[in-house]
């Protein structure tokens, strides 16, 4: 299993500014992911954070807007750049898969960062 912490837990930011969100895992993990969950909505994958190389972004998300760092196997950051009110959302770090007894796999989510842009 894995315990994930995120900082900050929430923030209120002004439009045009940037916020960096940190994700710390208590064990080394190969795969780390960043998701966005807009209010009352489902989860959308932003990117896969790759250790030692550039992140892999999903359609609709670009590096200039959401730069990601992954300096080691336990830590990653996501920056939300030049924010607008449309960026108000919960940003979640996720790690996995971890193999369980019986052969299935499990994915874990951090507690999330609730961002409000005014």
């Amino acid at each position: 299993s894995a315990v994930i912490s995120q900082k900050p837990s929430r923030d209120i930011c002004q439009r045009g500014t940037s916020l960096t969100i940190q994700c710390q895992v208590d064990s080394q993990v190969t795969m780390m992911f960043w998701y966005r969950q807009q209010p009352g909505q489902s989860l959308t994958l932003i990117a896969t954070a790759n250790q030692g190389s550039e992140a892999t972004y999903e359609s609709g998300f670009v590096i200039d807007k959401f730069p990601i760092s992954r300096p080691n196997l336990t830590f990653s950051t996501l920056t939300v750049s030049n924010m607008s009110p449309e960026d108000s959302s919960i940003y979640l770090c996720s790690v996995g898969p971890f193999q369980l007894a019986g052969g299935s796999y499990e994915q874990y989510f951090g507690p999330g960062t609730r961002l409000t842009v005014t």
Partner: protein
Amino acid sequence: GQQVMQIPQYQHVQEGEDFTTYCNSSTTLSNIQWYKQRPGGHPVFLIQLVKSGEVKKQKRLTFQFGEAKKNSSLHITATQTTDVGTYFCAGQVNKLSFGAGTTVTVRA
């Protein structure tokens, strides 16, 4: 691209009753996962189904994976107030694609 549809969006249940939420994928999945998100919380993994026709039970929760590995269901029996939250399915091909979720409220 890969899409996962989930219905119903909302389920208002009388305590003690049963309900089912359904997921449908446009493509054949390698596996499907189910998560529960309590109000104000983050998604918590419930289960993963991998095999065609697989059925797994966790106490009052029964999960099924269709024969074609394109659909899945979660059935909860004897609903309790602790079942309140949003249940997401997430289908995996290369990446996880989440359904819209079923938000469950329970009336005592």
